[in-house]
Every structure is written in C-alpha cells, then in structure tokens.
C-alpha cells in the first residue's frame, strides 16, 4: 500500500520534479520559468509528472472531501500508466500546481476529474511507448509496460522516466488516446484499501484543523446577533485582562479577535463587549412556505415539456394534486470550518479545506483588490464536506485577520458559527399534478418547483460581506433544477422551475441539491398515483420506464429486496411497510433504485427505518469497497436529514446552533444497508456521491404510506407531522 506522504514532502518532491522534468512542454516547464508549473488542462504535464525515482506525481484539481477519491484516482492513473499503486503521489487542489478541474461537487470527481486524469495518463502511455519503440527499433505494439518499466520482447526493460529526456514528444492531452481494455485492468474494479485510513486511525493524519505555521496566531470571529445587524460599538477594554490578546479587528460589521493562543482567542471572542443594531428581516418560521410561495419569481425554467399537459389534465378522468416541501438544512460537518492565511507583502497564501480552491483564489483576490496570481490557495483535507459549507468563509475570516495583524492567523469556527453561518440548503416547495384516464393510465404530469434563482456559481464569503468587501458572490443554490424532469415515459409532461429572487438564508449546495428535493416530490407523487390506480409501485415504474438499463436495475432491486414476496406485519401499534424510489440521475447518468423498510408506531408517530436495499449502476466501478462506503454514507446521512433535520430560526437569526437543537441520526437509529452493485467495466464511470441520497426521502415516505396509509409530504418526517397526518387521514 502506498503511504500518504506529508504535504511538505509532497511539495518538495513535486518541486524537485517540476524543474527536473526533461520533456520540453508547450507551457510552464520552459527553462526561462522553471518555478512555474503548468496548470493548463490541455497539457498532460499539468496533470502528471514521471519522476526520476520511478514515482509518478498526479496533480488533481478534484480533492478528497473524505470520500476516498484520493485512492480511486490513484487506482485510475496507476492502472492506465501501469505503474505500481504505491508509486503514485497525489497532489490535490493547489492553485499553483493543479489544473482547475472544476469544483469538487456534483458526483463528478471520478466521472470528470478521474476520466481527465486517465486520459492524460493514456496520452502519456502512448507517447512513452512510441518513444520506447523508436529506441528499441521495434513497433510500439510489441512493448508492454509493467510496474513502471517498459519491457521489449527481448532484452532489458527501461524505466519510464528514462524515456523522458528526449526531445519532440507531443504531450498535448489527446482525448482520442486509446484507453486500456477493461480486461487488462489490474487495479481498477478491485477494492483497494484507502490510502488515508491508517493515519486517520492513529492520529497521524494532518487535517486542515491541525495545520500550523511558525509564529501563527489564533483568531475567532464574532458574528452579529442578527443576520443583518450593524456593529455600533466595541469596547476593547472589556477583554484587556485576558493574557495573550493581540488585537481586536474591526472592519465595518466584521469583528474578530486575534490572540497568541487558541483559548485566549476563544475567551476574547466570548467576552468582547459589542453593541449591535436590531434586525428582524427573516420571515416568521410558521409562515415559511407562504413566504416561499410569494417570493418574487424572476423567471421560469421549463425543464421538460412534452405534448400538452394542460389539455390532458383538463380531459383526465381522475386528477391528483399534492404539495411537497423540504426544510432548510445545514451541512453539519463534525469539525467546524478552519483555515490559515498568511500575507507576504501583497501576496496571500491560504490553506483551506475548500472544495473549490481555484474559485476561492478569485474570491480572496477580489476582497483585497489583488490579481488572482497574488493569491495561492492550498487544499488540506478537512472534516467531511457535503457541498459548499463554511470552509471558504473561514478562509476569508483568516485572511482578514492575518491582514490586520500582519502575521499568519488560523481561524476555526466554533460550533455555533458553523450551524449559524454556513450557507444553507434553501427551503424547497413543489406543487405536483397528474391526470389519469379511465383505465388508470397516467396521461398528464405537471410540476412546479419554487427555488432560488442561480446555479452552482460563487457563493459570497460571509466575512467579506460583513467587512463591506466584494467576494464575487451571486445567488448560487447549486444545480437545483436537475431531476425535476422525470425518467418515465408519459404522453404529456410539463415541469417548471419558478426561480425566486431571494431565499431567507444565504443558500448553497448540500449533497444532491435540488435533485434530492425534486426526486422526493417526483418519486413520492408517482407512488401516490400508483396507489390511486391500485398498481404495485414497482410494476407501475416498470410500466412507464422505457429504458432497458433502468428496467434491469429495477428487477435486480426487486430480487435483492424480495419486493414481490415481502409481506407486511403488525404488532400492537407498530406496523411495517416498504417503499421504493428510482432514478436515472439527472436523466443522463447513474441509475439507482432503493427499497426502504420501516416500522411506524401509530401511537407515538415514530418512524424506525430498519433497512435499505440499494441497486446501483454507475457504469464502470473503480473501487468497489469505496463505492459501498459512499452508498452507506448516502443512505445514513439522508435518513438523518429526512427524519430529523430542520434549521430553526427567529426573525433575526438561526437558533438551532448546536447538536441538541439540530439533532442528527445516532447509532441506535441507523438502518442496515444491503446493496447490489452493477459493474459495467466496458462503460464510462459515473458519479456515486449523490444519486443514492436523492432516493432516500421518497423511499421512506412511500414505506410509511405502505405501513400506515398516510402520506408524508413535508421533510423532516417528525413525530409531530406523522401524528398530524394520521389524525387527518
């Protein structure tokens, strides 16, 4: 197994190889600028370096957010180049070293990032074999690469690195460079133990939260007591008695304390006397859904429009309608966001667990009116990140404080900062309508989604906002209109997203943004229609699905979960039920179907989620055990979101700022997860970090209906809501 090398060692290694890499590339490696490594994604030297010692350095713009992609990407490159797994060193998310491969989100690290790295490796492989063939004076096809050595049919093998000091190899990334045939994979498709785990279970792993610089101070921020409050006054003398306070930093409404020790910074931030204006700009929580429904619509995005749904609805024999809503969620990373920033004159280095260091660089540059080149962002693994959480904001805080004291500053948010100020998954509302003919056939499907405008853009940095600085932020809830269109073939369909001007809290994407909420409504409503038509939920889906791969997956799911032979049971007030959900993610990639088994207590309203069955087809599987780990996480995390989670707020601020007021799933409540992974080694690999999560809400709701005959249309499915639904039925 390869060792996870320390960042410093990695950078020393990569620094050494950058200047010693002998192939003259089109940009970056030239003798005139030896220190500047190319990060141009059109150039394979930006992604790969074959080092004289036989190791291969991979420069990945996609980062490991705790998902295990470090290991999977290593497998992909090592296999494609035929170098040993242990010979690959992976550098991630360093704006000076790694190409911008896009934000690490959307289940795209392997599907896009890994595929790009693999293509770079394939380009290199072909070029190296051609060069070796030239040297051996034999056709390249007669050569094979094994463990980093090129073997001719007869004679001594040569190491890959020895082929590099030759002029004239074209190393432009070639999208047509042939990939290895699946039958030749040695690493891809086999479970590979994760590279980071040994250090993580012994306390040797360096997380962002552990990173320190010599002479580094500690900072804490003091956020306003109301979202839109302004800072009226600060009494610095109120903390003068705390030893080690370096400075109270104030810039407009940004307020922070810098201290020599972390504890002094915390004490200082807690005790600092400041007065703020009042502010009551949030909607009343009990009127949240009216607020969402009546927020100004900027535009409509019609995501599918087939036939004439309005006419078909008018002519339908039966019409069904339902409204679904999904609460505001926080990311809830266990480790609050953290960053270290250091200025060297007008040059800023920022260490961050950001999923988007290249974007963060632009944002920090904008804050300080720098050029992008004056900012260097370096990724270090942090606590799990499930979207755009507070990591970037902590980076802005650290930078503001470091600038003020002209020394390196580390900021870690406190728990209340994280729950209170990370960007939130916005409240999401969906109206659904369907029409059926006399035979029970669905003739019309309509949906209307109420969701903030914008896509997966740049989210403003909260510290910059408070300091009155521009951080390039726009309304960016994520790719939230995906999966509003449905995978089923129905004659008349119209799905419309009403894009709202605003939403109560700064929004951003949390795992499967919009896709989870849309899938919740779609798959729950489809279940409602099936029940109305007295059709089995599985058979109904098979009937409307004209997709061979999807149908095959549903049959695998039916076998796995014994769907057709399963029977309900009751004991006292407790009733079991099972529910199903299916999607082809974003209608273009990973197929996933799930069956959930629940036991519902009609007296207490409690839902016990007992078991999840998952059939999963993401094409080619890179690391099967890594995939299983991801799927388990998708299920467990989303069961938590669906059963328990909801941001509470007053008209001034978030009030659920700890784990007591924002409870998440605990060990005794965690369901078993049983899965069937469908591997297709001859297909491209698709993402797996999100699709299963999107299936969980509807599957639980549908299982509850199966158990006790009531529909849950509002996440979270709290006991209060279950009891209210029972009372209404």
């Amino acid at each position, binding site marked *: 197994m390869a060792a996870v090398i320390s960042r410093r060692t990695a950078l020393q290694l990569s620094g050494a190889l950058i200047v010693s890499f002998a192939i003259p590339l089109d940009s970056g490696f030239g003798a005139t600028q030896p220190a500047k490594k190319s990060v141009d994604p059109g150039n394979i030297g930006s992604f790969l370096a074959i080092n004289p010692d036989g190791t291969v350095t991979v420069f990945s713009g996609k980062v490991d*957010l*705790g*998902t*295990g992609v470090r290991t999977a990407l290593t497998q992909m490159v090592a296999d494609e180049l035929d170098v040993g797994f242990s010979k690959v060193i992976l550098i991630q998310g360093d704006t000076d070293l790694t190409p911008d491969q896009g934000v690490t989100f959307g289940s795209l690290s392997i599907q896009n990032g890994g595929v790009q790295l693999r293509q770079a490796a394939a380009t290199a492989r072909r070029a190296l074999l051609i060069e070796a063939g030239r040297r051996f004076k034999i056709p390249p096809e007669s050569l094979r690469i094994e463990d980093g050595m090129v073997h001719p049919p007869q004679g001594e093998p040569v190491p890959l690195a020895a082929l590099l000091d030759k002029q004239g190899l074209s190393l432009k990334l070639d999208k047509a460079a042939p990939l290895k045939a699946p039958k030749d994979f040695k690493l891809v498709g086999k479970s590979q*133990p*994760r590279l*980071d*785990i*040994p250090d*993580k*279970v*012994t*306390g*040797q*792993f*360096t*997380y962002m*939260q*552990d990173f320190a610089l010599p002479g580094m101070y500690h900072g804490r921020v003091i956020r306003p007591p109301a979202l839109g409050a302004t800072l009226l006054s600060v009494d610095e003398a109120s903390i003068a008695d705390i*030893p080690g306070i370096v400075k109270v930093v104030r810039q407009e409404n940004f307020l922070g304390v810098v201290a020599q*020790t*972390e*504890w002094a910074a*915390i*004490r200082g931030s807690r005790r600092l006397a400041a007065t703020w204006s009042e502010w009551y700009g949030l909607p009343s929580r009990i009127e949240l859904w009216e607020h969402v429904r009546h927020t100004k619509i900027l535009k409509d995005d019609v995501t599918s429009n087939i036939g004439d749904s309005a006419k078909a609805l008018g002519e339908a024999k039966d019409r069904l309608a339902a409204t679904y809503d999904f609460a505001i969620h926080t990311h*809830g*990373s*266990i*480790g*609050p966001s953290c960053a270290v920033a250091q200025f060297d004159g007008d040059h800023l280095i920022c260490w961050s667990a950001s999923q988007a260091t290249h974007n963060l660089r632009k944002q920090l540059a904008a804050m300080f009116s720098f050029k992008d080149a004056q900012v260097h962002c370096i990724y270090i*693994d*942090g*606590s*799990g*990140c*499930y979207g755009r959480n507070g990591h970037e904001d902590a980076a802005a805080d650290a930078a503001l404080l470091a600038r003020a004291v002209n020394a390196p500053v580390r900021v*870690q948010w*406190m*728990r209340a900062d994280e729950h209170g100020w990370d960007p939130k998954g916005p409240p999401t509302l969906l109206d659904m309508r369907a029409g059926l003919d006399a035979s029970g056939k669905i003739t019309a499907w309509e949906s209307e989604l109420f969701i903030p405008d914008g896509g997966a853009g740049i989210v403003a940095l909260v510290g910059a906002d408070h300091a009155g600085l521009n951080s390039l932020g726009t309304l960016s809830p994520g790719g939230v209109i995906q999966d509003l269109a449905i995978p089923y073939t129905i004659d008349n369909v119209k799905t419309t997203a009403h894009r709202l001007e605003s939403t109560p809290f700064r929004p951003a994407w949390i795992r499967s943004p919009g896709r989870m909420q849309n899938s919740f409504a779609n798959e729950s409503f489809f279940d409602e229609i099936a029940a109305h038509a007295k059709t089995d939920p599985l058979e109904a889906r098979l009937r409307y699905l004209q997709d061979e791969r999807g149908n095959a997956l549903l049959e695998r799911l039916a076998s796995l979960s014994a769907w057709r032979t399963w029977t309900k049971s009751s004991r006292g007030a407790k009733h079991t039920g099972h529910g199903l959900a299916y999607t082809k993610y974003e209608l273009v990639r990973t197929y996933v179907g799930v069956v959930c088994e629940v036991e519902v207590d009609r007296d207490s309203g409690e839902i016990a989620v007992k078991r999840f069955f998952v059939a999963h087809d993401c094409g080619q599987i890179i690391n099967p*055990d890594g995939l299983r*780990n*991801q799927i*388990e*996480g*998708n*299920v*467990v*995390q989303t069961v*938590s979101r669906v059963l328990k989670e909801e941001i509470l707020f007053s008209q001034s601020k978030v009030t659920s700022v*700890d*784990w*007591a007021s924002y409870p*998440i*799933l*605990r*060990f*005794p409540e*965690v369901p*078993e*997860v049983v899965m069937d992974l469908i591997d297709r080694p001859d297909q491209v690999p698709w993402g797996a970090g999100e699709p299963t999560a999107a299936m969980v809400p509807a599957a639980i709701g549908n299982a509850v209906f199966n158990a006790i005959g009531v529909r849950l249309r509002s996440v979270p499915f709290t006991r209060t809501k279950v009891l209210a639904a029972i009372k209404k039925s």
Partner: protein
Amino acid sequence: MPEFQFSVNGKEVVAHSDDPTMPLLYFLRNDLKLHGPRFGCGLGQCGACTVHLNGAAIRSCVYPIGVIKGNVTTLEGLSSPQGLHPLQQAFIDEQAVQCGYCINGMIMQAAAFLKRVAKPTEAQVREELGANLCRCGTHLRIVRAVMRAAQ
C-alpha cells in the same frame, strides 16, 4: 502562571495556563501537538475530542485542565511500540472511515467500553456510541469494526 501536573500517554507533563477552566483539549492539541483528539463542538455533544482519563472516556473539549489528576491517554497513546491497538487495526480492516474527523472519538469511546464489556452485542455497541456523532454516515462500518475488535 499556574501549573498543572498530570501524565499524558505515560509521560509526566506540566501544563501552564492562566486559566484553570481551559479545556484539556487545547493543551493536548496546541501544546503537546497531539492531533488525535479534535474540536467538534466544545459542548461535549459530539465526541470528536474524546480521550481517556484514568481509563474512562471523557470529553476533553469541556474538561477543565485544572481538575485533571492522573493519566490521560489519547489516540496516539493507544497503540504500543508492538503495534496498533486492536480497534485501530479493526477500523483499517473494516475501512471504517470516511472523512475520519469523528473516528478518534469512536475508537477512544469503544476502547474504554471494551475494557468494561469484552464481548458486547451489536445493540450494546450502538448504545455505547449513541452520543458520538458521525456526519458522513460511517456508522455501519464503525459498528462492524468494534465488533471485529471485540472478537
């Protein structure tokens, strides 16, 4: 500056702090550079900071340094020169980590528990870890790892 004496991972240490209410966690992480225990909530709610005090699992993020007496063990002190603690090996064998930020607490809580209950049932393990939070959803693997270590 007041001094507090106790031992950490078998070595005598002296902590200097002007504030006896400073939680133990900051001394371990910042003065001793022991990064096994981690800051998660500062409220004793999540378990990421768990260490042993005289063999019992405590939340170091809320445990004042001024009252520490005896021996503190951190994740780093759990393994011996002879090798990994059976729980650490089991977590590797079961690949029971996603981001791993909570894993210190899982291992430390379970290690203290297995000393009391050598052969727990799965339900007992789940109950014992009930106040340790994981956000990635690694729970099933964590339970399997603890059960494996108990074998």
